[in-house]
């Protein structure tokens, strides 16, 4: 080149990854689970779109949130859904939540040396009817937890959840103990506060919020029937129900 840019050989490598911002979180209750994510997709300082879903319904009692490199995330969700469909064709039922969790670990680890650059959080209802959250790292390490935040604002949200869900650094009132599970209205408030907080303090979080609520069979909708923007996605014959609540977040 005339400007001499090729004068000295340069080490240059195509970088197959990118980072698309956003944050996800999930909280398990006794008989429900909430999985949420914002809908902004960004690269660097540019907002690519204000609506790119990061939370996906997998079965009538399982929801998956993916965060990190969007192209990997979308491809990963597509492949998980494909495997779940094959499972349905083979066994005439949906894959149980803990089996989906193990499947995801296997699929992530299969790419150990060219990983999906994605943090996954799986939420839903276990076969025993309890709410459950599984969180994963990009190469498949996973554990079941009561709550987890991941993504751009993980460092902002996780300590808040530790305090509000696990009651870290809180003393219970004398003569009583902290509750093991929080009721749904409290959880929803914590989720919304988490995201408004993250939106305020992190430039990659905002635009829209999608909160998926998975209710175990027999559980009433008490806790959010008054809320606006609620849409029911599915009901099983046994009575498990999946809802999504859509809210606006600040767009600046």
């Amino acid at each position, binding site marked *: 080149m005339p400007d001499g840019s090729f004068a000295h050989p340069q080490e240059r490598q195509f970088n197959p990854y990118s980072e698309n911002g956003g944050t996800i979180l999930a909280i398990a209750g006794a008989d429900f689970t909430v999985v949420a994510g914002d809908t902004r*997709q960004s690269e660097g300082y540019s907002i690519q*779109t204000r*609506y790119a879903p990061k939370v996906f319904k997998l079965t009538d009692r399982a929801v998956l949130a993916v965060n990190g490199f969007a192209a990997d995330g979308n491809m990963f969700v597509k492949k998980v859904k494909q495997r779940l469909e094959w499972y349905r064709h083979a066994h005439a039922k949906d894959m149980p939540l803990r089996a989906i969790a193990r499947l995801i670990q296997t699929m992530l680890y299969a790419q150990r040396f060219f990983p999906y650059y994605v943090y996954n959080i799986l939420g839903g209802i276990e076969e025993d009817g309890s709410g459950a959250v599984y969180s994963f790292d990009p190469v498949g390490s996973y554990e079941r937890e009561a709550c987890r935040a991941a993504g751009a604002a993980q460092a902002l949200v996780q300590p808040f959840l530790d305090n509000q869900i696990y009651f870290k650094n809180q003393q219970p009132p004398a003569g009583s103990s902290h509750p093991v599970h929080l009721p749904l209205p409290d959880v929803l408030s914590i989720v919304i506060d988490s995201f408004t907080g993250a939106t305020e303090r992190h430039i990659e979080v905002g635009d829209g919020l999608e909160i998926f609520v998975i209710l175990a069979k027999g559980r009433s909708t008490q806790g959010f029937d008054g809320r606006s923007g609620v849409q029911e996605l599915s009901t099983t014959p046994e009575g498990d129900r999946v809802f999504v609540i859509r809210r606006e977040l600040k767009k600046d």
Partner: protein
Amino acid sequence: MDHFPTNWGRPRNDAHDAFNTYPLHQRPAPHTDTFAEGVQRTQQPIVTGTSVLAIKYKDGIMMTADTLASYGSLARFKSIQRLHAVGESTVIGASGDMSDFQYLQGLLDGLVTDEFTAGDGDALGPAEVHEYLARVLYARRSKMNPLWNSLLVGGVKDGESFLAYVDLLGTTYTASTLATGYGAYIALPLLRQAVEGREATLGADEARRILTESMRVLFYRDARSLNKFQIATVTAAGVDISEPIVLDTAWGFAEGIRGYGGQTQ
């Protein structure tokens, strides 16, 4: 059965060719890549196109790109088309490497032809074309051998307008206003302000005016751009790609800008 006529009537073991009839065309042979030990893969784009802009409007989508293909900072080809119709209801616009784009055009044209010869009345819509491109680009980035493009895909099918982005990493997204390259920094804020919330009422004339003015701004600010561009329109009636439009632009004012013009102090 061996379906290659050229293999018929031969000895079973043709490792040695007893009848000395080799080679004939179309014999399947074990594939050996001469360069397998030292494969060269795309590390950077060579001949490049700059921004592509697109918006949704009342009747469908509108997309624009200038007609320049640059070779580094050299304005090498000044009349190439970066907008390409795919079938009857889709248009794609490309920035990035032009040879990779031409390769993609070949793939898509083959796809459209196959769809036509099937003769079943189905046709590819913009969503299918976008999904296909996303798969191709993601597969190539996963082989560490990317097709170096940022593409916009737009169209109208079954009364639905569609507008989406896909790039060399396989990253995808949709929005009612999209831009690639410098357009994402310079034109996109203008487009969002002019279009967002008005997609259903925006008329064709105003949509064209918005894009034209954005192209003017890009021409003045993006050193790899040209004041000659085309506008593609996709509506329920089909795809139309305009003849090149030349903007009346002037650099006379630059003389008076300190640090740009002739003045030394």
